C-alpha cells in the first residue's frame, strides 16, 4: 500500500500514468471508434484536416482516414512496445538469473553471449531479423526484444550475485531447498524491482524502434503504424507536412508518457530517502 502512495506522490509518475491511460483507452476503443480496416480508402485523397466533419484530420495521399490511422496506430505501438519489453525482460531475467546463480563456466559463456548481442547495434540486428523472416507483428516484437534483452540480463545477474550471499538464501539452502527453487522463490522476486524500472525505458525504446522499422518499410505491411504513416507522408512532405508531423507527435507523447510512468515506478520501488 505504501508503495502505491509513493507512486501517487511522484508527479512524474502520475502524469505518465494519465498519458498512458489515455493512449490505452484510445487504442482499446479503436475498432469501436473506427470500425473496419483503417488502410481502406475512406474518401478523396489529400483532404485537409478540419474541413470535413466525418474526416476530422483529413485523408492522406491515397484517401485513407488519418484519424483512424492514428487511433489504430496507437494499438500497434502500445502492443509492440509492451510485448517487446515483456519478452526482453523475460529472456533477460532468466538468462541473467541462471548466469548469476550458476557461476563458473556457464556464467562466463552466457556473459559472452550477452556481450555478442550487445555489440551488434540493436537496430541492425532487428533489420537483419525482420529481413530474414516475413515482417509480421510477432516477428517485429521478437526482433526488437533481441536487441533489448541484454540490459535486463545484466541487471538480473548483478542482483542475483548480490542477493546470493545473503542470509535468507543460506537458510533456504540449509532447510534443503533445491537451488532452482531458491532461484525462483527467493532470489527472483527480490531481483525484479530494478528490472521493472528498466522496463519502462525498454518500452519507450521499443516504440521508437518499431516506428523506425515501419518507416523504412520493414514493419508489418498489413497494419497501420505511426511509422508507416510518417513514411507515407514523406511523399507529400512539401505540400502536406502535417501528414508526417502528426504521427510523430503521437510518438513523442507515447514515449514521454512511458518514461514518466517509469520514473514513477522507480520512485515507488526505491526505498531510499531523498536528501539534498
Amino acid at each position: 500500500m505504501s508503495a502505491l502512495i509513493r507512486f501517487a506522490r511522484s508527479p512524474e509518475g502520475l502524469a505518465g500514468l494519465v498519458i498512458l491511460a489515455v493512449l490505452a483507452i484510445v487504442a482499446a476503443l479503436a475498432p469501436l471508434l473506427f470500425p473496419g480496416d483503417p488502410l481502406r480508402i475512406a474518401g478523396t485523397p489529400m483532404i485537409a484536416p478540419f474541413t470535413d466533419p466525418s474526416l476530422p484530420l483529413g485523408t492522406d495521399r491515397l484517401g485513407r482516414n488519418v484519424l483512424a490511422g492514428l487511433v489504430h496506430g496507437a494499438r500497434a505501438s502500445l502492443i509492440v512496445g509492451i510485448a517487446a519489453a515483456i519478452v526482453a525482460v523475460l529472456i533477460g531475467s532468466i538468462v541473467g538469473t541462471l548466469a548469476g546463480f550458476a557461476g563458473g563456466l556457464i556464467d562466463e559463456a552466457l556473459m559472452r553471449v550477452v556481450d555478442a548481442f550487445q555489440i551488434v547495434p540493436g537496430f541492425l540486428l532487428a533489420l537483419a531479423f525482420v529481413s530474414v523472416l516475413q515482417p509480421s507483428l510477432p516477428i517485429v516484437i521478437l526482433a526488437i526484444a533481441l536487441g533489448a534483452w541484454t540490459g535486463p540480463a545484466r541487471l538480473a545477474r548483478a542482483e542475483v550475485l548480490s542477493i546470493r550471499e545473503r542470509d535468507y538464501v543460506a537458510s533456504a539452502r540449509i532447510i534443503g531447498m533445491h537451488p532452482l527453487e531458491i532461484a525462483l522463490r527467493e532470489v527472483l522476486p527480490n531481483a525484479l524491482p530494478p528490472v521493472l524500472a528498466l522496463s519502462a525505458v525498454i518500452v519507450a525504446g521499443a516504440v521508437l524502434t518499431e516506428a523506425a522499422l515501419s518507416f523504412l518499410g520493414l514493419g508489418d505491411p498489413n497494419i497501420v503504424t505511426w511509422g508507416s504513416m510518417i513514411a507515407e507522408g514523406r511523399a507529400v512532405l512539401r505540400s502536406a507536412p502535417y501528414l508526417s508531423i502528426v504521427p510523430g507527435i503521437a510518438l513523442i507523447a507515447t514515449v514521454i508518457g512511458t518514461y514518466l510512468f517509469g520514473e514513477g515506478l522507480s520512485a515507488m520501488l526505491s526505498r531510499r530517502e531523498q536528501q539534498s
Partner: protein
Amino acid sequence: MNSALRLIGRRAISSIPVLLIVVIGTFFLLELAPGDAVDAYLVSIGGGDAALTEQLRAQYGLDQSPLSRLWLYVTALLRFDLGWSVGFNRPISELILERLPNTFYLMGSATALSFVLGTALGIVSGARIGSLRDRLLSIGSLALYAIPSFWLGLVLSVVFAVQLRWFPTSGIETIASGKEGFDRVLDIARHLVLPVSALSMIYLALFLRVMRAGMAEIWRQDFVRAARAKGITRPRLVLRHVARNALLPVVTMLGLQAASMLGGSVVIESVFAIPGFGRLAQEAVGLRDAPLLMGIIVVSAVLVILVNMIIDLIYAFLDPRVGASERNT
C-alpha cells in the same frame, strides 16, 4: 600507461570469442532466410533457368553446405575478405570501405556535438539540483529524448531545407561539383548540419541526464563537503570536484551508446539520402544480399569493439583508480 595497455590487450583477447559468436550467430540467422542473393538477382534480371541458377550458385559458392560455407567465411575474414556482394557485383570489403567515411563524418560529428553539449548542459543542470534551470533542463531533455530521430530529420528538412533553403535536403556533398580541399569540407559540413542535428538530439538528452544524475550522487559524497569546508570558489567546487567525478559515468555511457548510434545512422542516412554504411544496410535488406548484410554486421561489431577500447583508454586516463589493483603501491 602500461596498465591501460594491458587493459586494452585483455579486452582484445576477450573480444575474440564474442566476435566469433556474432559471426556464427548472424550466419545461421541469415541461413533462415528463404532464398538467397542469387534468387533476388534472378528476380531483378527477370528470371533465369535452372542451369543459370546452378552456375551462379557455384560461382558464388552458395551451393555448399552451411558449415563448410561458415568455415570458408571465417577463414576469409582473417584475410579481411568479406566476400562478394551479388546485389552490387563488387567485393564487400571494397563497398563497405567506400561507404564508411561518410558514416564516420556523420557519427563523429553527432557524437562530438551530443557529448560536449550534453555534458555542458548536464553540468549547468547539476550545479544546482532542484533549481528552476535544473527543472527546465530536465523537462527539455525528456522531450528531446522522446523525439524519433527520423521524424526530427524530416521536420528539420521541411523547415530548414525546403522552406528556408538554408541547407540542402539530401546527400553528403554537391554531386560532381569538383570542389577541393577546404571548399569541399565546407560543402560536406553544410550537408551534414541537418542530419547531425537530427541524430544527436537523443544522445544529447541522454548525456545531459547521466551527467546530472552523476552530479546529484557526487554532491552527497564526503569529499565534496570537505571541499566546501575549505572555502574554495564555487566554480572550482562544481567543475573540479563534482563534475570531474561525474564525468566518469558519462564516458562509460558514451561507450555503451556507440552501438546504438551506429544503428541510428541507418534511418538518418535514409532520410537524408546519405550514401553511408547505414544506408548500405538498408540497401542490402532490399536486395536480399545476405553476405553483404553479414559483412555489415560483422564490421559493425568490430567498430563497436574498437570504440569501446578507445573509451576504456580514455576512462583509464580519467580515473586513476583503474588498474590500481595491479600496481604494487
